[in-house]
């Protein structure tokens, strides 16, 4: 069965994501796609967490944790990309 905190997480994703979309489009951050992808994977994980209380608990639990791994990989990709571009700028300045 689902927990209350999981429902709260999902509701926040549902209500805050549309507001965030406008801000994401407005900001100029290099390689923001990685972080956007990571956030979407987190949101998907919340959906799986709630759904596993109703259907296919094993499969959706695995999918939830798989989404965590994807989040890690995407955030790592974004951080690596930012780190490289920052290093490249420092090298150019020298």
């Amino acid at each position, binding site marked *: 069965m689902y927990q209350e905190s999981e429902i709260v997480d999902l509701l926040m994703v549902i209500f805050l994501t549309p507001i965030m979309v406008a801000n994401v489009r*407005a900001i100029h951050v290099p390689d923001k796609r990685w972080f956007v992808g990571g956030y979407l994977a987190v949101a998907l994980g919340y959906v799986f967490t709630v759904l596993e209380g109703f259907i296919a608990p094993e499969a959706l639990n695995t999918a939830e944790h798989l989404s*965590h791994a994807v989040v890690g990989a995407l955030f790592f990709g974004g*951080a690596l990309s*930012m780190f490289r571009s920052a290093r490249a700028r420092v090298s150019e300045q020298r």
Partner: protein
Amino acid sequence: MSAVALFDATALVFLAAAFVLLAATPPRDDGISRGLKYPLLIGIGLLIFVSLSNVLEHAGITQVLDEYEDYAEVLFVPLVAYILYSRSSAEQLRLAEDAEREMRREHELLMSVVETTPAGIVVAETGGTVSFANDEARHVLGLPAPSFPVQASEAVAADLTAIVASAPVRGIRYRGFAAPEGAWYAVSATPLSGSLSDTGGSWSSRWIVARASCSKRTASSSARTSRTSGCWPT
């Protein structure tokens, strides 16, 4: 090791690496600023805590972090929303400041052109209230030092009212402005578009350009040189 534990361990390793890389990235205004970097580190830190809790739980070590894991998950989405909102606000503020600087630069350029042009330029309203006049216009209209709005003298006000009422006009010859020499001027006037008043009503002012058409030749030599340039035959 179960697939779930493997995924959690993978997430933990990647997130920890992302945290270290991000912490080592020097902040820059045009890239990852301080205002973005540290909240992002907190966000990744929350996810690291969740992954660590999951790894410990699914590896059968301890479930002690499990009850706090929910707090971390609940905090994550609002934190992301805050990061995006603050970044967006900061960028909009920077754009507004850039636009204001550009506008001031253009204003200074235009004012330098207006102030140095040999034509008299006036923004006037019916009744002779002058909202702006350049050096040449102040000289022609006999207005005091630049302090606007100012009410023109009765004779000049009548002239301005007549021109304002006839606007738009272009290049008409006009003898007036109570000039002591009784000079002729080539006058153009156009209504100012837009709503510039606080009340939102239409602005009754007219943009008037008065160029000395042909002043009396009794003026001094230097004055004649400056005031008869572009002189129309009368």
